[in-house]
């Protein structure tokens, strides 16, 4: 597992500790899979942006739809 994935998993666990990553569909809408609201999502984006020192603009939210989308987006920003 890459460092980026470890980070994403940890932040999702902090927000949705009742959801196991193994139980979700990684290609489905992240907010649905983890049952997170807009405030949770904003907190997630805030934490990831700080950890990776990247701005996470709202205009890019569409590229952060699923777990896999988000991971790909973060991986690209982290390199």
């Amino acid at each position, binding site marked *: 597992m890459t460092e980026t994935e470890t980070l994403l998993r940890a932040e999702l666990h902090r927000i949705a500790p009742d959801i196991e990553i193994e139980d979700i569909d990684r290609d489905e809408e992240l907010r649905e899979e983890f049952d997170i609201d807009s*405030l949770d999502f904003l*907190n997630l984006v805030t934490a990831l942006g700080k950890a990776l020192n990247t*701005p996470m603009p709202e205009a890019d939210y569409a590229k952060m739809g699923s777990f896999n989308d988000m991971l790909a987006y973060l991986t690209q920003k982290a390199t």
Partner: protein
Amino acid sequence: MPSLGADMEAGTLVEWLKVPGDAVASGDLLAVVETQKGAIEVEVFEEGTLEEYLIEIGKKVPVGTPMAMIRVKGEVVAEKTAAPKAPKPEPAASKPEPTPATSTPTPRLKGDRIRITPAALRLAQSKGIDARTLGDIGTGPDGAFTLADIEAADPSVVSPPAVNPMDGMRAAIAAAMSRSKAEIPHYYLAHAVDLTAAQAFVDQTNANRAPDERLLLGALYLKAVAKALRKYTEFNGHFSDGAFQPASAINPGMAITIRGGGLVAPAIFSADSLDLGGLMSSIRDLAGRVRAGRFRATELSDATITVTSLGERGVDQLFGVIYPPQVAIIGIGTPHLQPFDVNGAVQSRLTTTLTLAADHRASDGHRGALFLRAINKHLQKPEKL
């Protein structure tokens, strides 16, 4: 024979606690029944006179079998059968279920003293166990109850697990909402609101902001409600001591869902005097603390109205239940695109439905409608919020 648990099919009558001719009232104990879970007292739920027994002591009968006839006051022909209210769970006896029809020690008759060793009696008294509820025979000589019987009957050890116990959160919601629906004469209003301007303002504001500086529509809702409350004061306060008491501050409670079940609506104090950035900080702080279980009691007690939003993944509208002693709750549905009239032309617009449930003792629908329209007006000028 009452059902004293979903798995109970039959019960054995071991003792009558009333005799024919006795006056009985709701809550009186009528009989003792032996079940898989131990001896359980059967209550009467009517007022009248016990007319006759319909089954004999020692008889095992299926659930639903009439056990006795009670003549209700004023009734000429007795027709009612005894049935219990929800029985208290009773400790199970340690002995195997007796079958009184065949067991050697005969079941106790009314008035018989139970046999119990002195040590067992002391222990039973100290634990608050009524030995008479343990069945008719113990495991000792001549069917006497022994220390081991009482220990085995200790409710802290052998009580059957309560069926679906309500946790504190569910019990608190149940109590508040039951009280609300029992006491508060709610009236309901709905208003379709165009959120295009509000969303555009949020998008524009957030475009150049770091994530922790960004706004959510929720902050705009709260501010719009808080500003409207300055004029519509009869929706902001508490109904107590038989009258509406307007609040001096505007402290809207924000409904926050708790993962795993339940919700709370702690207050954002003086929300009308905070700017949108300040409101966002308060929202984040409050939501974070609620999820960590660290909000303050005054944040619940000092809320003067509730605002509840379904967020992005909900449905069109919700009609709230007022949180007593508050007198109003504003509901905001999930924003979605739909045809909307804009200056005579139908366009696809981001809309939501704003609802109000309010206490008719404190306000009327006319003012409620004006209140909703005022909130809408504020949402159309987001830059002034």
